[in-house]
C-alpha cells in the first residue's frame, strides 16, 4: 500500500513530513548525470512546454478535478517527506548506508583477460 492523500508505506502506513522546494532544472541535470532516467517522464512536460508555442492546454489541465486533487495531495506528501529529510542535520561528510567499492579487473595476460595474452 502506498501514497494517496498522504504518503504511506507498502502497507498503507502513513509517513509524516512538511513542504518541499522544487528545482526541476537542477533535478533534470542531476538525473541525467546519475543515469536516474527512471525519474524522467516519458511524456512532454513543463520544461518543454515553457519554450514551445501553446498549441493546446497541457495534458494535466484535461484531467478530472478529483484526479488532479489526489495527485496534488500525493505531491504534497512527497514534499513533506523530502522536507523532513532536508531538514535533518548530519555531520558534514557523514557516510551513506552503502559503500561503493572499486572492482578489481583481471590483469592483462592472465587467464580470463579479455585483452589477450602476454606478448
Amino acid at each position, binding site marked *: *500500500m502506498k501514497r494517496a492523500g498522504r504518503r504511506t508505506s507498502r502497507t498503507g*502506513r502513513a*509517513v*509524516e513530513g512538511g513542504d518541499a522546494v522544487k528545482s526541476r532544472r537542477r533535478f533534470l541535470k542531476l538525473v541525467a548525470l546519475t543515469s536516474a532516467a*527512471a*525519474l524522467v517522464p516519458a511524456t512532454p512536460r513543463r520544461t518543454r512546454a515553457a519554450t514551445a508555442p501553446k498549441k493546446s492546454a497541457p495534458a494535466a489541465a484535461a484531467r478530472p478535478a478529483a484526479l488532479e486533487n489526489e495527485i496534488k495531495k500525493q505531491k504534497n506528501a512527497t514534499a513533506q517527506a523530502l522536507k523532513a529529510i532536508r531538514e535533518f542535520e548530519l555531520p558534514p561528510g557523514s557516510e551513506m548506508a552503502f559503500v561503493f567499492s572499486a572492482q578489481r579487473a583481471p590483469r592483462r595476460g592472465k587467464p580470463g583477460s579479455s585483452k589477450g595474452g602476454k606478448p
Partner: protein
Amino acid sequence: MSAIDEATLFAPVWQLSDRIRQRKLSPVELTEAYLARIERWGPKLNAIAFATPELAREQAKQAETEIGRGKWRGPLHGIPYGAKDLFSTAGIPTEWGAGCCRGQVFDRDATVVTRLRDAGAVLLGKLAMIEFAGGLGYRKADASSTGPCRNPWDRTRWTGGSSSGSGAAVSGGLVAFALGTETWGSILCPSAFCGTTGVRPTYGRVSRAGAMVCSNTYDKVGPIARSARDCRLILSAIAGRDPDDPTSSAEPADFRGGRAIASLRAALVPLDFSKAREPEARAAFDRAVTELRGMGLAMEEAKLPELPTAEVAGTIITAEALSAFERFHKDGSIVKLHDPYARYQWEINEGLRGDDLVKAWRVRHEIQRRTTEFFADYDVIVTPNFLTTAPGVDEDINVALDGYTDPAGAIGNTCGLPSIALPSGLGSRGLPLGFQIMGPPFEEGTLLDLGEAFQKRTSFHTARPPMEA
C-alpha cells in the same frame, strides 16, 4: 496411508513432514487434496494467480517414489506450497500481479524456487499479490490483476498486502506454506490480518535472484506459515549465499538459536492504542506480553530512536521502484495497473532531487548506527503488528489504517532487521490480531526460539477460519 481430512490441510509443516517421513501420509494424496481445495476456494478468495497442478503432481509423485525408496531429502520433502507470483518459474507465467505483465514467462526459476525444489517441496501454484508489490502505491485491495484478495476469516475483508495470496492461501488451508516478500510490511501485514506466522528475514538472508525487484535495497524474501517451527524449517531450506544475488549474505544459514530466554532482554514498544480502530488490540497485545513474561523474557518499555525513518524509507523505496518499473512507464503499459494513481508516480515524485536521495542514504546510515546502539541494550523489540484487524475489501486503506505510522516497520525495513509476526487472538469481529518480535540482523534464530516458545504456551496460531463446508 489414510484419506486426507480437512484438519490435515491445516496441519503445520513439521507435523505433515513427520507423517510423510513415516509413510503415514502420501505426498501424492496430500497434493491432490490441496489442489481440490485450491479449485474450490481459490476463486472465492482470489488467492491464486496460477495453479500448477501438472507440475505439482509430477513433483509429488517423485517425492513419494524417493521417500518410498528411503531417500528422504529433509523436512520439506513432499510438502506442497505456493509462491507469490513475483518469483520466476521456468515456463510458468509470472505476472507480478500487474495487468501490464500479462503473459510474462521467464525461462528460469528463482533461486528460492530452485532451493525448494531441491528440498523436495511441491509447487502447487503462484499466489496472488498486489500489482508490483505496491511499489507504485495503491489504496484499495483491488490493485491486483487477480482482483481483491479475500480473507478466509471473512470474505468481505482484505488479507493485507502485498503478499495477499500467500496470507490467504496459508490461512485458508490451500497450501501448507507460502513464500512472500517484504519491502515494507508485505509479509507482516498479511500475517497479521490472516492469523498466520510470518518471518521477514534480515536483508540478504534469502536470495532475491529471480524475484521481481521492487526496491533493490529493501526487498526481502520470507515464509508465511502456520507456526514458528515451520518458518524455521522453510528458512533453513531457502537461506544462504547465492552467487546470482550479490546482496545475499555469506552468514551461515543456521536458525537454531539456542539462547536462554531468561537471558534475553526485550524492549517493549506498546505504541499509541488510543489510535487503535480495533478495541481488542490492546487486550490482545497485553495477553501476548503476559505470555512472554511467563516464558521468562525480561521486558521494559522503551522508545525507538526518533529519526525521520519513515520519510527515508518512503523516499528510497520510491526512487528504487520508479527505476525498477521504468520500462512500463516508458512504453505506456503502466495504464494497465488498477491503481488509478500508479501511472502518475513519476510526476508526483518529480520534486525528488538527486541530493535528496543521497541525503536519504546518509540518514539511513545514521538510522542504522542509532539502531545498532539501541540493540546494545536490548536483544529484541516486542511491539504490536497492527492496531486494527483486516479492513474491508472496498475500504480505502489509507483511511482504514489512518494514524498508524508503523515506527517498528520503518526502522526494521530501513535497517534490514528480521522480524517474526505471531498471532495473538481474535478481535471484536472474530478477525485475527497479532504482534511482532524484531531483532538485530541475523538473529532470526532467537526470534524463532521466542516464537516457538510462545506458540507452545498458546493456541492462537492453530485457530482456523470459519470457512463454511
